[in-house]
């Protein structure tokens, strides 16, 4: 079960399993974000390259417009996926 909630104040909460079957839905939701934002991953249990790709695309879109994207509260194994993919050097992980 995957869920994405876009809250006031530029906070986005992802929860559950962010796999390839959820990528199109997440991408469409994140398209509505058009200023600096924080994605809270406290309740994210799983992410694959498809999920990473959506986050990278969102980061690039915002960055190209002069905005920032922070990812916060990553569980250790979620963080490890970002590290294995080499994205800890690209994205702002906190």
């Amino acid at each position, binding site marked *: 079960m995957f869920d994405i909630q876009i809250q006031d104040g530029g906070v986005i909460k992802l929860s559950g*399993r962010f*796999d*390839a*079957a959820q990528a199109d839905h997440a991408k469409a939701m994140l398209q509505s974000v058009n200023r600096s934002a924080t994605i809270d991953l406290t309740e994210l249990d*799983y992410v*694959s*390259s*498809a999920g*990473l*790709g959506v986050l*990278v*695309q969102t980061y*690039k879109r915002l960055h190209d417009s002069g905005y920032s994207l922070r990812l916060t509260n990553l569980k250790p*194994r979620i963080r490890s*996926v970002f590290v*294995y*993919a*080499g*994205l800890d050097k690209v994205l702002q992980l906190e």
Partner: protein
Amino acid sequence: MVERRFPRELGSLEPMTRFVAAYLDSRGLDPEHAFTVDLLIEELFTNMLKHGKGGGPEVSLCLAGEVAELSITLRDFDVESFDPTSAPPEPTRGDRGLGLRLVRQLSDSIRYEYKERSAVITVTKKVAL
């Protein structure tokens, strides 16, 4: 060893995770291994869907091994050959190639075979109780 066929579509990811959980439970393996096994399977499976031209209505997922090492095999039937192991080791552009990079990082071995129009990819992963 257990083998099951799944429809060649993204909707198979969820039943595949249940298949993995049941296998780990039946072998007395730590369910925490499911995270890595699910990730390896998803990356290989979605790679098949994306790059395997043609392809039958189903793919086969085979899990083998006990304590120490798990073997994961995905077989795509009646498909053109596409060898993911021949891809460059680093993502080629932006977010492309991330899946294979994850597979290389998370697995202990990866092998591709193509025979009689079946593409077979096998990865192994060392595990502990």
